[in-house]
């Protein structure tokens, strides 16, 4: 058996970095522990280069019996996750250095989680999907409880852990039933096996699909598995909340996309109604509860739940027609990428504010337009983009999903209309922060100085969203090439 080392090079580099980060931490003097971040950052950049070097080399079936595959889908998501890793590392630097945290351990855990993210889009069987999901979650439980002396942090960590482990167990039970029914773990073989079932076995297969969906619905914080999200985000350090809200949920979607569009695609008649309900309830509940929030991180958590509802919408459009499936898939991928940029940006600004205003209420943003003009401009762009209003990238993301819904017809039109109504509702809370920043006066008029690394990240994210609005084709292309080879 020969091993295609180039295909697994990103994973190898990141794994080596993880070990190096852990070992170098032993030899750093207590005052210089923050140097771990630069080691981790260099490793992430090297991984990103390794991922990009796979572009244009064609699909690689891999060398592990097809369990690990590299194709356009893998490359797009791996590059996205490594960019997100770089951003999270940069916004963590000052926060963790000044917060009195264990830094080496944190960067070790963060990179381990990102290793799971890296494996997820390349996983093409149930076992690998389970392992990557666990690899993303397990260090996440610890990072969520990283504010060790804070009771809220403990509580957020415990809730995250309990609901996470429970849903993993339910998902595994579903996977074991699918294995028993089809005799396979590989997604393509599972898909073929499920098609041949009938009668009682088909009913059991549907129950198993339901179980597996539960595991991923937790990861992406879809209603009714969402309640951990706001509590955990509030209790965890802000950069960890950024990781959970962007990378961890995108990893869940990368797995769910493969399951629903490849492994379970022929059973769509059973699970499409489920996703219609899931999508509608998630976006509506997320938006309505977000309206009540005054804590910025909780607001972003509920906004993330609402956005999950939008990303679930294309799943509910799956039908027997491959061309509709393709545009639904493309819409979902594009939305995840753009959502990642705007949400990371919003969390980066929140990190910058948190050193001066640890309570993180919306009131703390008052007068920011005068105190920190760049941050205020960027935050306005992120909020406008999350609401889906031009001239930002978020507009095209929503438009693509809307188009896919209309193309599907029937229930798709209903969902598209529901999304537009929800977007209008969401303006109600997304614009609270820009309003406070521009029209309200702060008690504390002194300029707010943001760490240079955070400012740089914020500026890049803002520029990216504006550029995407002008040239949407750049990111549409990414969505187009990632077809996963379904439906021809």
């Amino acid at each position: 058996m020969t091993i295609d080392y180039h295909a697994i090079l990103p994973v190898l580099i990141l794994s080596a970095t993880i070990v190096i980060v852990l070992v170098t931490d032993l030899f750093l003097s207590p005052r210089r522990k923050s140097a771990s971040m630069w080691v981790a950052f260099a490793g992430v950049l090297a991984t990103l280069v390794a991922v990009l070097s796979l572009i244009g080399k064609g699909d690689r079936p891999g060398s592990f019996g097809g369990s690990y595959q590299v194709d356009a889908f893998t490359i797009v998501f791996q590059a996205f996750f490594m960019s997100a890793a770089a951003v999270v590392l940069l916004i963590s630097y000052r926060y963790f250095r000044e917060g009195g945290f264990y830094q080496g351990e944190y960067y070790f855990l963060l990179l381990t989680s990102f290793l799971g993210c890296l494996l997820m889009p390349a996983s093409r069987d149930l076992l690998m999907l389970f392992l990557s999901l666990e690899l993303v979650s397990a260090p996440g439980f610890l990072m969520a409880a990283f504010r060790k002396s804070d009771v809220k942090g403990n509580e957020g960590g415990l809730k995250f852990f309990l609901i996470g482990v429970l849903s993993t167990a339910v998902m595994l039970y579903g996977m074991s039933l699918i294995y028993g029914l089809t005799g396979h773990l590989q997604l393509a073989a599972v898909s073929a096996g499920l098609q041949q079932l009938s009668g009682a076995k088909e009913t059991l297969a549907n129950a198993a699909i339901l179980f597996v969906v539960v595991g991923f619905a937790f990861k992406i914080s879809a209603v009714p598995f969402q309640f951990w999200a706001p509590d955990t985000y509030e209790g965890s350090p802000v950069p960890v909340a950024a990781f959970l809200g962007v990378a961890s949920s995108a990893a869940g979607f990368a797995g769910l996309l493969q399951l629903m569009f490849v492994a379970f695609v022929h059973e769509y008649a059973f699970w499409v109604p489920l996703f219609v309900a899931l999508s509608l309830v998630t976006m509506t509940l997320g938006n309505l509860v977000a309206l009540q929030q005054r804590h910025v991180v909780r607001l972003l958590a509920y906004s993330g739940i609402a956005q999950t509802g939008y990303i679930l919408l294309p799943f509910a459009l799956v039908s027997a027609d491959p061309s509709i499936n393709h545009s639904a898939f493309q819409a979902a991928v594009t939305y995840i990428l753009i959502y990642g940029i705007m949400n990371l940006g919003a969390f980066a600004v929140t990190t910058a504010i948190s050193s001066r205003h640890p309570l993180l209420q919306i009131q703390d943003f008052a007068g920011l337009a005068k105190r920190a003009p760049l941050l205020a401009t960027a935050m306005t762009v992120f909020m406008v983009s999350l609401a889906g209003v031009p001239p930002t990238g978020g507009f095209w993301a929503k438009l693509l999903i809307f188009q896919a819904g209309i193309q599907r017809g029937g229930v798709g039109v209903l969902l598209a209309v529901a999304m537009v109504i929800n977007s209008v509702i969401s303006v109600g809370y997304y614009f609270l922060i820009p309003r406070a920043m521009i029209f309200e006066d702060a008690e504390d008029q002194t300029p707010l100085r943001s760490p240079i690394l955070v400012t740089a990240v914020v500026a890049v994210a803002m520029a990216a969203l504006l550029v995407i609005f002008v040239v949407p084709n750049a990111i549409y292309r990414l969505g187009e090439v990632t077809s996963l080879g379904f439906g021809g």
Partner: protein
Amino acid sequence: MIRLPLVLLFSAFLFSAGIYGVLARRNAVMVLMAIELLLNAVNVNLIAFAAELQDVTGEVFALFVIAVAAAEVGIGLAIVILLFRNRASINVDEVDLLKW
């Protein structure tokens, strides 16, 4: 040779008992043990199917589940100890600071 349906019924019972334990127990350590029951129900399923199908994949899967379960309980106990240090209680019902 034990028949497959009997084994599946046994694992379904284990799984239900685990779910009941997670929902009804107040002590965080007991909740962790109930989660172990859930994962063991999965293992019974996997091994029964592997034996029935004469296929080694299911057994490998079960080995991975065992390893991951051990890691998860380690993390869970760490969080529970943290909670106990700060609150001197591991009753999951009292962990209700954050709502809505």
